[in-house]
């Protein structure tokens, strides 16, 4: 579009050189709109404000701010509220950033864009700003893969965190058959409240760390005296596994199920331990196991179900490694990276589809999955008294002067053209997949178990 616009201006100028009259009749053509780079000011946990100036012409139909957030494949385009009159104009846009909306460390590239009446655009220069947590003076230490940002505990704390992170990256990279090259940022908050400010109001109470693969960043809440606590050696590898998993399977078509992602994370950070084995056995005995398709998207909110979901996930991954070999895990990741369905990925890597894998896993655990509790149809509610009776068959044209009563009697007498709409809902039902799997690509929250 800009090329088109550019050609138009060029032609206008060419004609102007030949025909002097054009210089007097077309100031709009001779003067092009101009827009400068935005200035950005960050107020952490509040807003990022972009300001700038432009010289508008009567060609300008709209002014936009184009935002490219680090890790996002889509630009965000916001309308800038400005009076559209020729001449200089002050531009301003406020991007609200309350708790949980923008994570620290995110790079934001911004530029103003003028949309002209012919649909072409004039793009301004780009400004890049980092949304940083300015509440602290961050110290940093870099490992082989991980750059640690911390505020308390001293250099030894930072080095220990980097070592844990680097070791975890090596371990999971080997299992998934990938090589990490781009740096990974690891922010450690000593203060729990400050940490939860970053996560946002939707975070659970028991989160110790959270990975954001889209910006290759891990956040953790570790006090200065806790770096050698056993749980730290679990949380950091767990969350970093999600980052490497994302690298291994990344594709624009289909993201693997959550149980696989979490299962690998637990498997590598804790292994398939006694507590998970016990939970699996208990659930198998009680008949409370959930099928893997139930663990494709989010995990249960209730603590028991939440923990069982993790136990099932690591059990399935452990079964996969034990029965198909560690190489199968890398093959599975490679298959997913090719952008295939879950079933295709499992067939490519294991020689059996997801259903076959799940059956074998359940059989190995002596378990069966009971039918789901829902969905159920809503119980019927009140309806107007004259809404009972035969349908009126929407879309049908009765014969001339036919009378259609609320009771739905169609007296066209022909019997032609009737369409029984009562079959619509069953028809819709019949074509809608009844799976309960619901992987949402956009959801990349990773939560550690407390």
């Amino acid at each position, binding site marked *: 579009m800009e090329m*088109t616009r550019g050609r138009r201006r060029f032609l206008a100028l060419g004609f102007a050189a030949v025909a002097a009259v054009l210089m007097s009749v077309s100031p709009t053509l001779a003067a092009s709109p101009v827009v400068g780079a935005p200035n950005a000011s960050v107020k952490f946990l509040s807003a990022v404000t972009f300001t700038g100036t432009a010289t508008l012409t009567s060609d300008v*139909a709209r002014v936009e701010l184009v*935002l490219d*957030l680090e890790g996002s*494949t*889509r*630009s*965000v385009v916001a309308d800038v509220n400005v009076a559209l009159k020729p001449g200089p104009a002050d531009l301003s846009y406020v*991007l609200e950033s309350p708790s949980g*909306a923008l*994570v620290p460390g995110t790079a934001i590239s911004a530029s103003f864009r003028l*949309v002209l009446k012919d*649909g072409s655009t004039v793009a301004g220069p780009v400004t890049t700003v980092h949304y940083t947590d300015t509440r602290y003076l961050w110290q940093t230490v870099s490992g082989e893969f991980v750059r640690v940002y911390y505020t308390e505990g001293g250099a030894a704390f930072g080095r220990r965190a980097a070592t844990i992170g680097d070791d975890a990256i090596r371990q999971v990279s080997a299992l998934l058959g990938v090589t990490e090259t781009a740096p990974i940022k690891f922010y450690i908050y000593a203060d729990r409240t400050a940490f939860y400010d970053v996560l946002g*109001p*939707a975070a*659970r*109470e028991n989160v110790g760390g959270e990975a954001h693969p889209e910006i290759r960043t891990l956040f953790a809440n570790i006090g200065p005296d806790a770096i050698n606590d056993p749980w730290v050696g679990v949380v950091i590898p767990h969350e970093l596994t999600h980052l490497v998993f994302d690298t291994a399977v990344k594709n*624009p*078509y*289909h993201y693997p199920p959550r149980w696989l992602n979490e299962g690998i994370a637990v498997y590598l950070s804790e292994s398939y331990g006694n507590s998970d084995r016990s939970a699996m056995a208990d659930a198998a005995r009680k008949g409370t196991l959930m099928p893997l398709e*139930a663990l494709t998207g*989010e995990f249960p*909110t*209730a603590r028991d179900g939440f923990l069982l*979901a993790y136990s099932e996930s690591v059990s399935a991954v452990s079964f996969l490694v034990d029965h198909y070999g560690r190489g199968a895990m890398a093959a599975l990741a490679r298959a997913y990276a090719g952008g295939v369905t879950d079933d295709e990925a499992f067939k490519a890597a294991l020689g059996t589809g997801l259903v076959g894998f799940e059956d074998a896993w359940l059989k190995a655990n002596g378990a069966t999955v009971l039918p789901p*509790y*829902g*969905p*159920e149809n*809503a119980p*019927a*509610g*009140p*309806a*107007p*008294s004259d*809404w009972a009776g035969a*349908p*009126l068959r*929407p*879309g*049908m*044209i009765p014969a*001339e002067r036919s009378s259609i009563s*609320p009771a739905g009697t169609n007296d066209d007498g022909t019997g*032609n*053209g009737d*369409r029984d709409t009562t079959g*619509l*809902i069953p028809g*819709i039902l019949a*074509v*809608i*997949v009844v*799976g*309960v799997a*619901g992987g949402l*690509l956009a*959801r990349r*929250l990773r939560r550690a178990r407390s």
Partner: protein
Amino acid sequence: MTPNRIQRGRPYTPAMRRLVCVALLLAVVGLAVGRHVAPVAQAAARDAVSILVGPPTSLDPAVESDVGSAFFSSQLFEPLTAFDLSLTLRPALARSWDIAGDGRRIIFHLRAGLVFSDGSSLTGADVVGSWLRVINPRAPSQLASLFMDVHGAADYMAGRTTDPANVGLSATGLDVTVDLDRPGADFPSIVASPTFGIVPPAVWRDGATVGLGTVASSGGYTVAGSSATEITLKANSHYWAGTPAIGTARLVLSIAGRSPVAAFEAGDVDYTDISSADAGWIAYDPVLGPQLRRVQALALSYLGFTTDRPPFNDVRVRQAFGAAVDWTRISTLAAGSDQVPAEGMVPPGIPGAGDGNFLPTHDPDLARRLLAEAGYPGGVGLPPIQFAAGGLGPAEAIAADLERELGVTIKLEEYDDHFGHLQTDPAPMWSLTWIADYPGANDFLGVLLGTGSTNNYGHWSSPAFDSAITDALATRDPAAAEGFTRALKAVRDDVPVVPLLNGGGWALSHGTLLGADENGLGILRLAGLAWK
């Protein structure tokens, strides 16, 4: 993300079912930890219901155009007809109607004794006045296309005539006569749309703004109050079907960033849409599972091209883009548990959807040849193409296929006013999800793609398509309308749009809440709710 209402009849994106922080695309999903609060049976005398919804853009039937706003306006302003939960057309303000003149004249007979919530009479004049607002030349409804078969409506909306008497609408007492330019196969169904809700004279005659509690209503509820986080409705004791069973409806607009599941578990809402990602585990939860509801939706997500500007004004470019992508494959990979790949513009289950597949054939070699013939060999000469993704899940996948097969560059963008830009200056590529106003094929064909239709966002014009639609609408049986099949083929061959996904959604509804179901048109009828 917290759920918003599905949009209906009209622009709707799955993403907008939730209160997404679109400006950031980084809204954080929450799964608040949980005490599993089993929703206990409410007292029989319970008189209020809380429903999590998105804020409306307008309460005015003639202004709103998204299903979230239509949810509100439909509770306040009743149309003449309505679809029940089985998608059966029922009488609402009209007790019956006659069809005459080879189907070109429809006479609606209003119920006797109708009044607005303030006790003032509701007559045929209110119907005519309300419907003329839909085609107001100064501010026509975005869904005015639904009304274009009414004689003179197009001329009135375009300002070619200023006399409303030239529009085929007239009222005599409780009778409203509508004259159509073609047989009105689906007109009584069309006016069941919330767009055709009846507003009082203060609005249609005196020009009052439809705000929160500012005007009398004709629907089951009136506005009792509002705040930043809630709009409260109270039952209309003058409602034609009797006072609704639930006296107060608290329409919750915000749950402070919590997940809707958490809000439901805490008892803060009695009904809420949820994501398919949560539906999976909830189905196996002994407490929540029985309260899980599948929300039907006659909906279609589709990709559109702006066909009156380069490069997509060249049919070969559109055909190249259509042939470059394996659309079914991409949709299959992207579909959630509530979606299926689309095979045509008309969702399955709607008469006229046609048999077979109406997608462009996947043929990358042909795609490259067509693009070269159009003057862009290997994509050379094409500038980066803006794709207003509108929250479409498989946008990245589509871009990847196009870039790989054609050598083009696709720039994915999310607009803070996606629908507004579609109306005024659509990007070269865009997406939209549309949910039916009524269960008719034309709502997805003529309304979205007919020449000059207000909802033809890509400005496509095809005499063959228009002719096919005209033929289809003239038949007695839409299900057997050969014209619709011709229209579907015209879309497939000319590629103004590409159908992607059909599907609905999921909801959690309190176990003792009766009638909390939808019929595929995207709106929960509050007057149909009751506590067990």
